[in-house]
């Protein structure tokens, strides 16, 4: 016997194959209970639709679970509810405008999307070695701050989904501090479009380094300590996560799983170490691993990574403070690619600086033409293709871009780690308890914006 908990047509073939089928929609079970031939046989199956609107599915994920009692016999993930056509839209904008689209894919790690996209465009342009040193340091700084924010956005809701509001509030409170830093530096809390092909949009604002230093000195270590004290040995958390959602190295390899899930199997695979980019080889940090292959191990890896990221941020701040280069650029010094205007904050928001406006409107016709051409038309990118992978907070995030030699991407594709990790839901959940589905999903830390793009 099968009970479909949400509505659906009962069909004669289905009944012939599965026995008596009951459809229950809207939580009304009365007619099932009162049905005379209600069969309480051993092989009773219930099909439950969890999502797409469900508080613990991290957005609009839909899980189709087949249950025998409390045991999940089949778990199927259904995605596509947040597909926004980012990749198609990119083909109708200039290469620079593309940054504002990719940043919205996985909205909990916007900096990583921007970095992967911009680095792949830079490889197509052949300017990878011409990016200013200061821009590279600021990129690393922002990426590591974003890693902290993304992991907190995974750990906090993890607690909430297990029923602990305190963990959620503590996690979100610390994430809030990181978002405040983002707001100070980029002007926005998310969807920054801060990393651009050729460098970053603007330099650190006055007081930016001091604000990060203050966060690093006092708040961050205390908040990490509080979170660890709250979660690490919490008996309820341990009971819900230890040995749950098991995924070993072999399964990770077969399913293309990377990031904290892979490192929780004991393999220290981190692209920042193995295939360094942005000068990561010059920073001191460790790659934390666990060998438990379970949800608890993934939590510990993320927590350790937060501490390592803060370590890298500290080094970035020191480097930026120690640099003593006059007119240190943050955008490539190539007038054919670099954005012509220094941006500044005006009364109506971010825009070209008043000096730049005065220059192009009053002083130089050529500068006006140059500005117009570069802003409306954009730069040309030589034909070809490139794939640049980076170690994002969730795993390998790659950007495959194809150019036909024009001013717009011919094709841009984000290889989002969450998309691949969602395939592991069935492996993690089938044969386990229904209650363990929740920590399994939370330990993957998927963001549907990145899965669906």
């Amino acid at each position, binding site marked *: 016997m099968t009970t479909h908990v949400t509505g659906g047509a009962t069909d004669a073939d289905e009944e012939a194959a599965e026995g008596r089928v009951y459809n229950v929609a809207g939580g009304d079970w009365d007619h099932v209970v009162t049905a005379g031939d209600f069969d309480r046989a051993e092989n009773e199956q219930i099909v439950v639709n969890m999502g797409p609107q469900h508080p613990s599915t991290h957005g609009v994920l839909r899980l189709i679970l087949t249950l025998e009692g409390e045991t999940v016999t089949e778990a199927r993930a259904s995605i596509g509810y947040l597909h926004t056509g980012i990749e198609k839209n990119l083909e109708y904008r200039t290469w620079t405008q593309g940054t504002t689209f990719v940043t919205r894919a996985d909205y909990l790690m916007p900096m990583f999307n921007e970095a992967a996209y911009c680095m792949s465009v830079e490889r197509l342009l052949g300017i990878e070695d011409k990016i200013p040193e200061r821009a590279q340091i600021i990129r690393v700084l922002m990426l590591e701050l974003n890693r902290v924010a993304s992991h907190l956005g995974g750990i906090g809701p993890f607690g909430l989904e297990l029923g602990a509001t305190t963990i959620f509030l503590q996690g979100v409170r610390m994430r809030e501090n990181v978002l405040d830093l983002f707001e100070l530096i980029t002007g926005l809390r998310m969807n920054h479009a801060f990393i651009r092909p050729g460098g970053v949009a603007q330099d650190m604002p006055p007081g930016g380094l001091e604000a990060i230093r203050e966060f690093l000195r006092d708040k961050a270590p205390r908040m990490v300590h509080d979170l660890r004290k709250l979660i690490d040995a919490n008996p309820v958390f341990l009971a819900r996560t230890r040995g749950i959602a098991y995924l070993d190295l072999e399964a990770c390899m077969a399913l*293309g799983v990377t990031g904290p899930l892979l490192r929780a199997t004991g393999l220290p695979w981190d692209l920042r170490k193995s295939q360094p980019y942005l000068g990561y080889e010059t920073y001191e940090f460790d790659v934390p691993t666990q060998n438990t292959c379970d949800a608890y191990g993934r939590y510990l890896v993320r927590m350790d990574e937060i501490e390592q990221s803060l370590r890298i941020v500290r080094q970035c701040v020191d480097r930026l403070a120690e640099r003593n280069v006059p007119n240190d650029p943050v955008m490539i010094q190539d007038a054919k690619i670099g954005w012509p205007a220094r941006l500044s904050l005006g009364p109506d928001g971010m825009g070209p600086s008043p000096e730049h406006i005065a220059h192009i409107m009053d002083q130089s016709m050529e500068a006006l033409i140059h500005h117009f051409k570069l802003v409306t038309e954009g730069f040309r990118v030589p034909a070809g293709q490139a794939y640049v992978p980076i170690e994002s907070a969730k795993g390998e995030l790659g950007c495959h871009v194809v150019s036909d030699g024009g001013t717009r991407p011919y094709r841009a594709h984000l290889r989002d780690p969450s998309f691949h990790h969602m395939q592991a839901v069935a492996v993690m959940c089938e044969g386990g308890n229904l209650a363990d589905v929740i920590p399994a999903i939370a330990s993957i830390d998927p963001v549907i914006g990145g899965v669906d793009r």
Partner: protein
Amino acid sequence: MTQTPPGDETPAEENENLPLHRPGGTTPPSPPAEATRGERRLAAGVERTGMFGAQTTGDTSGYGRLQVRQPPPLSSEPPYGGYFDAVAQALGAALQAAGIGFSDAIERVVVDRGEITFHVRRERLVEVADKLLHDPALRFEICTGVSGVHYLDQPDRELHAVYHMLSITHNRRIRLEVSAPDADPHIPSLTGVYPANNWHERETWDFFGIVFDGHPALTRIEMPDDWLGHPQRKDYPLGGIPVEYRGTKMPPPDERRSYQ
């Protein structure tokens, strides 16, 4: 270009695609469809350089019979540099052991911007992937999925599937590229070798209409099940409606004036 004078019986050795006046009242061959656009694309030859980023010939005279030569497809000869030679040799040896010649499976190799691309014939894709995964000298454990590309201007090889492979054992990366004509959009599925490609192949089917033969359940994944068409193909419009902003109507992005 010379026109054959009437009555001249010497066989025309000119390009038969050009609409020339034929003797004896025979109907001239109809010009190819491209000629009506004022250009004809040739598959190989010198690379075109247009002015002001012109998309076609740049011919504004109205004469309309200039011949456009497409750039020849990129191809690299060994040595490829770095670890690329080791990969190519190991792959060749592994294929040889299975009784497949290297050039039977690999159409050409391209080294560009520090990345190596093996253009694989689609009949041999599964064998090549199997060797890449299982041969100890190759060991590409992770296939990071498949990305489709729709090249409108490559006749009989419009649809491309691009695979990026990662070897953790050897710390290497390569790219495989497979093409299929639009009329026969079939590429063998890699799910038997790399189960991770399951969803990504569904996505590529959904967006590009590439049929991955042998996939266990090739259904749409991002678009609704009853969607018509494959949205990321180049002949599929972006869509959109005009939006009013500060008193003026903004047309949708693909209908705006385009500076390119």
